[in-house]
């Protein structure tokens, strides 16, 4: 994992990588990246809401707010997003 992902930038605009497909499941969701051919998992429905909201929200922090994530839980979600960024499941909107 690169050092960039250790501190996830919640205030930047993020999006789902265009080559990633998302399938909702009982526990959250499955993600598949057609470019890297890797599978990943969202382990809660709330995290799915966060990821699904990234595209339309100006920042990851705003997407977390949409999902009703409180300040206390925010670090947990930032870590989850950092992991998704490291595996290219999500990317910065400016880097498309």
């Amino acid at each position: 994992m690169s050092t960039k992902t250790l501190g996830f930038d919640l205030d930047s605009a993020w999006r789902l990588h265009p080559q990633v497909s998302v399938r909702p499941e009982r526990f959250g969701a499955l993600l598949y990246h057609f470019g890297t051919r890797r599978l990943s998992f969202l382990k809660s429905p709330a995290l799915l809401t966060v990821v699904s909201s990234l595209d339309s929200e100006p920042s990851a922090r705003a997407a977390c707010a949409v999902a009703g994530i409180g300040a206390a839980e925010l670090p947990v979600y930032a870590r989850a997003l950092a992991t998704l960024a490291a595996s290219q499941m999500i990317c910065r909107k400016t880097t498309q």
Partner: protein
Amino acid sequence: MTVTAPSLVQEFRFGLEAPICLTWELTYACNLSCVHCLSSSGRRDPAELTTAECKRVIDELERMQVFYVNIGGGEPTVRPDFWELVDYATAHHVGVKFSTNGVKITPDVARRLAGSDYIDVQISLDGATAEVNDAVRGRGSFATAMRAMQHLADAGFAGFKISVVMTRQNAGQLDAFKVIADRFGAQLRITRLRPSGRGADVWDELHPTAAQQRELYDWLMAHGENVLTGDSFFHLAGYGQELPGLNMCGAGRVVCLIDPVGDVYACPFAIHDAFLAGNVRGSGGFAGVWRDSELFADLRRPQSGGACTSCSAFDACQGGCMAAKFFTGLPLDGPDPECVRGFGEAALATADSAGAPRPSGDHSHRRAPVPISIGRRPDGSGFGEASRRESRSVPDRACDQSPLAGFRPEAG
């Protein structure tokens, strides 16, 4: 595939909305007659799904958001509509990973494949040398595979897969396989030999020894995620640490098989009526089978560990592979025949191997199977010759026309 949270694996055991990994065998036709073929392939079945029916299945997979299908056979590329179906799938957001012996991978085809993010290719190779490979897969099959891999590498297809079924004869070639993979910029995939299809006839002679199994485990641990295993060696978790992957039997829970006639089985290694969940031609289609089949509902309930429950390794190995037990005549709630603690070997010694269930279908070529000699059979007979002779006496089929009639792989 990277999974670390056990709770997620627990979720998977109860089944998913759609399979993660779906194997779809498009045809029983094959130009080869590999002695261990898991689907006893050779001749096309006259009842195979038509192009239109295949497209309807793809439409369903798109609706169910099945990310990709593992297409196999038989040799899928000999279906005249193979490329049409691949194009249809990728246009409908269903990725395709197909297994091939390489017979149709010309330079043109390789270039076309290299151009798509949605297509992945797996070349089957069961020996790092022609001698070892051809003894199992047939004369000339090593050269065909190497030629196909050269075409893929020349076309710039990085990271295609080389798929190896681990046997007693090739277990000592792991490093040599890695050298071949590295030479072509490919990724190695090592999977477990199951006593499925014609594999039932040769399993005794081909499955790795206990000592080889231990070496394989150490080798896989050393290579980590750089070598794929299709999660097929989860029974080796009994040695201690788990190999990368889900480490669970996915049958009917996260994987299943659609066979060439549309029958849906719990897993590619379980082509037997006992594991038949339904057919995609039924009114509910594939989705109906996946969601509503009684067999799959059973598999998604907590399973009994039976005789294994008291074993300290049970949490790790989960009792091993259902298909391996079934086709060697062992009870499904007992040890895997290749149990790392040796309980499988003990069980096999007293099991009624003659009474073990036989695979349901047989599409083997009626001509004599691949001649085999690895230099230890002075009489020139091959693996499982006696039992295969028996299985060759199959009833006449309406369609025995070879789809490869007149076709010759390119020379050189």
